[in-house]
């Protein structure tokens, strides 16, 4: 499998996700600079976390309009899987590849902590290695993770099974207390209509190594390698 990690100015989890990908793939992903709009064909495109363009104006807004994104959008429309983590998720919504928007956290403060998320569907290249309903412990680290969409969009996401993950208590209950940012319906991650584009706020790459205190994120990368090899 070949993967590309897109690097925007002030992306800062690009190396982290490359390390996690390499551990699962057995080879390094391609790092693509935001101005290189013609990068080689790959089986997976990753938009990493960070603060592209300082998150100035709106998180992800400027990156979404950069030249490389036009190419990412083209490939996503052709079915190339795209994974957006944190800032990557924000970029995907700003670019229109995913519906809704990520607003300032309800608590207004940046939040970095381990949260629990529930796997809502295993029917995707990203979640196939998890069990449905599995509860994962994964860190979040963001200032703008408060998922918003209008009612009709939320209903459509629910109806189509396009909610990938929800914030839950360790025992799986969906509660306000388990929601770190005020996201609508505790949504932590969503798919596009073909489930080939996933955006999520938690960072699976941060708990994919036992020495760092957990491995719940690892199966996402292993699953991708298995599906796309």
């Amino acid at each position, binding site marked *: 499998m070949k993967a590309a990690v897109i690097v925007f100015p*002030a992306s800062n989890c690009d190396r*982290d996700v490359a390390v996690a990908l390499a551990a699962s793939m057995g080879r390094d992903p391609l790092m693509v600079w935001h101005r290189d709009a013609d990068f080689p064909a790959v089986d997976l495109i990753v938009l990493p976390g*960070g603060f592209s363009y*300082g998150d100035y104006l709106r998180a992800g807004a400027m990156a979404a309009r950069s030249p490389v994104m036009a190419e990412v959008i083209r490939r996503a429309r052709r079915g190339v899987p795209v994974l957006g983590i944190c800032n990557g998720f924000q970029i995907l919504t700003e670019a229109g590849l995913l519906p809704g928007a990520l607003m300032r956290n309800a608590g207004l*403060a*940046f939040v970095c*902590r381990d949260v629990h998320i529930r796997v809502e569907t295993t029917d995707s290249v990203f979640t196939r290695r998890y069990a449905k309903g599995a509860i994962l412990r994964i860190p979040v680290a963001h200032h703008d993770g408060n998922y918003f969409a209008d009612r009709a969009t939320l209903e459509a996401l629910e109806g189509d099974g396009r909610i990938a993950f929800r914030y839950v208590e360790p025992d799986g209950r969906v509660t306000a207390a388990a929601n770190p940012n005020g996201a609508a319906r505790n949504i932590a991650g969503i798919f596009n209509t073909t489930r080939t584009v996933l955006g999520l706020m938690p960072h699976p790459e*941060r708990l994919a190594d036992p020495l*760092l205190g957990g491995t719940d994120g690892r199966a996402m990368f292993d699953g991708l390698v298995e599906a796309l090899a």
Partner: protein
Amino acid sequence: MSAITPALVAEHGLTPEEYARFRGFLGRDPTLTELGIVSVMWSEHCSYKSSKRWLRLLPTEAPWVICGPGENAGVVDIGDGRAVVFKMESHNHPSFIEPYQGAATGVGGIMRDVFTMGARPIANMNALRFGDPAHPKTRHLVAGVVAGIGGYGNCMGVPTVGGECNFHPAYNGNILVNAMTVGLAPADRIFYSAAAGVGNAVVYVGSKTGRDGIHGATMASAEFGADAEAKRPTVQVGDPFTEKLLLEACLELMRTDAIVAIQDMGAAGLTSSSVEMASKGGVGIELDLDRVPVRETGMTPYEIMLSESQERMLMVIRPERAELARAIFDKWELDFAIVGRITDTGRLVVRMRGAVAADIPVAPLVAEAPVYERPWVRSPAPPPVPADALARAPAIDAALRRLMGSPDLASRRWIWEQYDHMVMGDTVGRPGGDAAVVRIHGTRQGLAITTDVTPRYCQADPVEGGRQAVAEAWRNLTAVGATPLAVTDNMNFGNPEKPEIMGQFVGCIEGMSEACRALDFPVVSGNVSLYNETMGKAILPTPAIGAIGTLPDISFAMTVGFKRDGARIVVIGATRGHLGASLWLREIAGAEAGPPPPVDLAAERKAGDFVRGLIRDGRIDACHDVADGGLLVAVAEMALAGRIGAVLDPAPAGLHPAAWFFGEDQGRYLVTTGDADLLAARAAAAGVPVMVIGRTGGSSLTVDGAPPISLADLGTIHESWLPGYMAAEAGPVQTE
């Protein structure tokens, strides 16, 4: 040009003698720009004129020190061709005026000091002191400072892995924001600031220069007209996005052979960076200010030389590499301008619009900078511990609850959750432990980092407090299993022109120096912040110590939480029940009195080496140093971290239970082990006192026959003070 009047000289903070000395080697009246240059170079901040003589007492050498004080940051060798570059710096005053931006730009500044030397920052720390929680400004300051530190560090993608935070009324008018950055570089690729090579290009990179933070003292100068105030904000706004680009661009350029010397533009901007580079290299520098990228029109040479705009660097590069360098900065979309060249004249020559704005010989500007032997007096002995303090002691369990929810002991989770402490994917020991542990990327080696000082001890007895601050830092590194390596410091004090304040400074330095020598713990960098006084009221003497150590393998990294039921809890080091200057005395008995606990440096070292040995040999499964709040607070923290309770034996005969459980005797660790006999035997052989004080298990703490304290309750008390306090903050934090 305005005449240089005595009033103008005074406004620039120069004494008549200092001015006469400057005029003497200049050989004529200075221009306004020259006066500005000398005023910042000879300011306390740049010249260390009050502290220099005393800083020399600190030991700065060891076989593993690659570069001690004098450069942008200290450098130590950690083996395998790698070096750690680190320093701590204050941004106290700006953070009081504008907490978000003040703290943010403080973080930005210290990161630049580290990457200037060729190191990629891999961890940030912060040591914070705020006023009384009940003071009307405190909440707002806490909210802004924490958001600002997070705002900058998070955007940079450097994890903020720890720090400290205290509250005391002495900081009501002068908070302390000390930020530390730790970076990693190849040991043979360290970059220094000494300029060299006549004809080499002087290059300016980064943000454009504005009228930021220009020396406040000069604002009244008639030269600037009536709108001077409006033109000159003294607080800078941080731009972490540009700094992130600057970091990546500099590191990219540092992989080539283009750079001869590099220096960040921090305090006093272009002035101090160019003077330092020229002075260290024994060369001259010519600057053409018409080429400096500016973001405002009509800037004068004075303003450009003194601007403190952030996110800028000055470099000396080989002219034949200029185009390569320019291409790298173009890629990162940053300004790049050749603004001057290196000369053999030994003079700083500044030109603008066809005129010479300054022409100063560099060597005397640096060599003749004033150094003062300020008068000082030894600090008086603290008031004695009230004789009836123990007689009025409340029950142990009640005291523990109060301490665990007190401002100085309550959980700091509310702070560290606003910091991305995991980015870079190498944070092994997250905030909340004795020292943070980060993995050296791509290896199994670990780096332990801590910041420590107990200002109430320094106030009671500066020498003992200075010793204790160093010893505690060393102990915290040891408690996670690391070998302590070196220290950076941030000396925060009041007005040095007062002999009693100078006495605190001298005392702390003496104590620190002694401890650093005894523990083989050299000081490789640091910063001095004086005049932390408002209306004659000084802060507590606060010599913050930042320190690092290494772990050969992160799988050794020890943590504080109890791991299992039925383990023996053992205290290592002697407990005498010292309550002077303790938190128990202050929070429970209501007295800030008594001498601080003495530090026995020989015993300290023995106990620490013993504990490190136990950790490396896999003989213990939890370890925590005993500090603020004493033994019982340490047990409670271990229990909460591991979600496992404990049953403790009563206090030994002859010691009051409050003294036993809350005394703050130094040089102690709590560990848990399954084999207490083996531990005792090893301790006897090593000559270290140890004592079993209880065992782990259950879901509560049972102390000395008192009713059990449920961990759930204790956890709520511990976790809720800070968020509860901050929930009443009257405002949305001003953010970016």
